[in-house]
């Protein structure tokens, strides 16, 4: 059976190496049973895959499932059909951003992180935390206070970001990569 | 510029017990592959003499496949050992004759490897598309009638 390349399934089949294995999902639940962040997902990966197969793309892309994925790869190594589940989660994040359908603010964390890299070349934990919490969880950030304080008093949070020397080089590389990626 | 060979002509000599059954298996599983190969059944890949392969090239075949049982699984104990030893030598003869080595494929395909058979045939067919047609290569080619050919 062939899939419309504009659907979630079609995009996974077309873009992702190994993505065609998604068609072989047995709905056994090994992934959902193994997932450490499973309890808070809207749908466990297994159900999400059934929804993808059923063409419920809108629901799929609005779900928080892939944003809650911690990339631990446990589902991937255990899947009896060798479906690259973690990679599919990455791909779904990408699709959700492209389509603008995401509702969760977890994407904010990823985007904040990426934004930092694009500005400094390295991750800056304090800046990441403040920026992320200020923009996404002004109240949640307060809860993180004690932890940040403890970390800072032990010299584990630096106040200034480290910037790589040749930032212009990195920027040029990333810009080109984005351009190439957009063509696909 | 080399001429592109859109539809290479391939003759496959398949041993009856493993590879021919493997090709049957590909059929039973409805595995698709290009139609270019025409299969000739032989009892054992060891039956395929270099001369037979050479004659096939001389008739304008763009590729020849000799498929047999995996080493150790030969229906005739170790008939395919001969195949395994014969054709490396024959490859050198092909060099001498100016025939690209890539036109002859020796491969072990068991009766249960229908999928492998389809893959190998597909891949071999594709690879031959990059070579010019054999017929144009053999400048001195004189195609005989069957009777003439058989008389030698």
């Amino acid at each position, binding site marked *: 059976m062939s899939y419309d390349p504009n659907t979630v399934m079609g995009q996974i089949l077309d873009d992702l190496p190994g993505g065609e294995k998604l068609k072989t999902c*047995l709905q*056994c*639940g*090994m*992934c*959902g*049973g*193994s997932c450490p962040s*499973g309890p808070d997902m809207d749908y*466990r990966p*297994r*159900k999400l895959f059934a929804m993808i197969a059923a063409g419920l793309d809108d629901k799929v892309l609005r779900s928080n499932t892939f944003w809650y994925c911690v990339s631990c790869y446990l589902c991937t190594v*255990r899947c*009896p*059909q*060798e479906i690259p589940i973690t990679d599919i989660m990455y791909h779904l994040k990408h699709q959700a951003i492209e389509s603008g359908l995401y509702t969760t603010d977890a994407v904010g964390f990823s985007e904040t992180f990426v934004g930092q890299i694009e500005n400094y070349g390295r991750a800056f934990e304090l800046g990441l935390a403040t920026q992320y919490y200020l923009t996404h969880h002004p109240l949640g950030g307060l809860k993180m206070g004690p932890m940040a304080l403890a970390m800072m008093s032990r010299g584990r949070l630096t106040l200034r970001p480290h910037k790589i020397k040749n930032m212009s080089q990195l920027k040029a590389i990333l810009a080109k990569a984005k351009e190439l990626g957009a063509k696909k | 510029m080399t001429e592109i060979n859109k539809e290479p002509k391939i*003759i496959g000599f398949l041993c009856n*017990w*493993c590879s021919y*059954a493997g*090709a*049957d298996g*590909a*059929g*039973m599983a*409805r595995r*698709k*592959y290009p*139609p270019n190969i*025409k*299969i*000739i059944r*032989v*009892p*054992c890949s*060891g*039956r395929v*003499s270099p001369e*037979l392969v050479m*004659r*096939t090239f001389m*008739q*304008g*075949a763009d590729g020849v496949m000799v498929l047999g049982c995996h080493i*150790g*699984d*030969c229906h*005739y*104990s170790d*008939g395919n050992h*001969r195949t395994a030893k014969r054709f490396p030598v024959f490859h050198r003869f092909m060099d001498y004759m100016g025939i690209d080595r890539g036109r002859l494929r020796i491969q072990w395909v068991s009766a*249960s*490897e229908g999928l492998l058979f*389809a893959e190998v045939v597909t891949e071999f067919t594709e690879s031959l598309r990059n070579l010019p*047609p054999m*017929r*144009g290569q053999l400048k001195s080619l004189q195609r005989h009638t*069957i009777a003439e*050919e*058989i008389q030698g």
Partner: protein
Amino acid sequence: MKIGVYTCHCGSNIAAKVDCEHVAEWASDLEGVEISRDYSFMCSSLGQELIQEDIQKLGLDRVVVASCSPHMHEPTFRGACQRAGMNPYLCEMSNIREHASWVHEDRGEATDKAKALIAASVSRVRYHEPLFPKQAPVNDATLVVGGGVAGIQAALEIANAGYRVYLVEREPSVGGHMAQLDKTFPTLDCSACILTPKMFEAGNHENITLLTYSEVEKVSGYIGNFTAKIRVRARSIDEVLCTGCGLCEEKCPVRIVDDVFEAGLGRRKAVYRPFPQAVPKYPVIDREHCTYFLKGKCRLCEKVCPTQAIDYEQQDRVLEVEVGNIIVATGYDAFDARRIPQYGYGRYPNVFSALEFERMTNAAGPTTGKVLLRDGVSVPKSVAIIHCVGSRDVRYREHCSRVCCMYSLKFAHLVLEKLPGADVYNFYIDIRTPGKDYEEFYHRLLEEGTKFIRGRAASVSDATLGEEEEGKLIVTGEDTLIGEQRRVPVDMVVLSTGLEPRHDSHNVARTFSISCSREGFFKEKHPKLDPIATMTDGVFIAGCAQGPRDIPDTVAQGSAAAARVLSIIGKGQVEIEAAIAEVNALTCVGCQMCIGSCPYNAIDFLEDRMVAEVNEALCKGCGTCVAACLSKSITLHHFTDEQLVAQMMGAMDTLFALEPVPMEA
């Protein structure tokens, strides 16, 4: 020459992709073709009669049938020709189904390919010669390899018909896996109770030569006339003197874990019978563990034996037996659950394999039938049974092992029967109950209150939380029917391990010149219509060696294999392949290249005439000598150079003829 060409539609199997009418019409113009027809089913009796009529009325002397694989219907069409008075070797088949219509998408391409294949056959068949197979008598003895229920069944059927059977078993006793089981599903009758009488009968049948603790090392010959070399390993027990009293076993000071019969859950002595009902009744001394064989002293068994039957000096014997047919029924290996670390087998004591659990519930087993934890004392209050361990998983075994669902249900029943009030959980993907009264058994289990969780269990761990979970095993998984993660604390976990091919199945296959399927089970001649036979005539397969199956199916296959053998014995004669090699003594230069190339040493060199000669009885027709002959003096009948060259040229000519554009400028 008058050739008849018959193109089969095979319903729509061929006709959907090959324009059969057009092909038939086209073929009528080929050289030598007298008549060309197409028909919906050539293999039907009407189709065959069509050929017969044409042979008789039109005087055809060659026939080409373009249909399916010759592996399927060559005997059919050869038979039709023969009935019409034509030599069967003058019939040739073109495989336009498996090699054309089923594997190509485009109708035009498939049709063209069919034409080339038919033209090749027409071209070839002109050079066919009549051949006359010789008859050879059939040895009426049979070799049955494997003494499980399949082998026992086959051996008894043949022996009861009055013919000799050599039944060879690797272990010290016959019985196989079935002897280890406790109850059998779905009837719950006791496995030993139904198997023991058959074992006893096999062990005492006047027509059965039972060779236990033995293995077949080499097989040569062909259908009707095989010779098998069997190594009978030294038991270190004189079977003539031994009465099977068991004193030696009782007194033996060595106790080791029994990995075979007790599946690792129980222990045995160094001199032992695997179980009390073992057949034959004689024990064996396990030389790898016997103190005398390891350290040179002990000999306690010798001292206590009342009949001086202990023989430390006994040597392996190698027997050579002549048989007409062989049945290979070597069974399966249970999947080793340690290969899946997240289920904790070999890590947590209270995780058990299915065979361990079988032994545990068996009244004759290590716990005398009590369901206990590994400490040998505590009684579990909750048990989780995990299905599909090693099965339905491409990283281990892709196949469904067919019996696990049912035996898992049986386990659940046995736990509830022995431990009323216990909580039993089944983690399953699908419950598969394809058998008579199987689904009913599942319903019974539902009534009994077993809890079913639909989802492959993800892991078993000792990471408990809180006091009430203390000491328990935590089974996690997704209950896919409610879409929630489940965390089930239990006292005991049973892993329903799948069935896999014997670890040495490839070697065994080579010994008997048969082949293995992709996963390693023996390959049958045809998956539907000939699941018992193999590509090697006279060698049959039965039971789990061919693929996972339950006891009724295994027994049925054992009987079926016996029936096949008996029909060959009943006929008394087999045809010897007529397609064998022949040396032309006039042109042979005596170089002897052929002699070295022959896998069967079937070529002799006649010193006096300085030429080679093929021994007809030994030649199997592989044709390696033909390819090796430097003076082109050897002919392999039915695969002659002329025939193969004509076939190749027939195909090539057609390909060039069908090519739309002229080749050279």
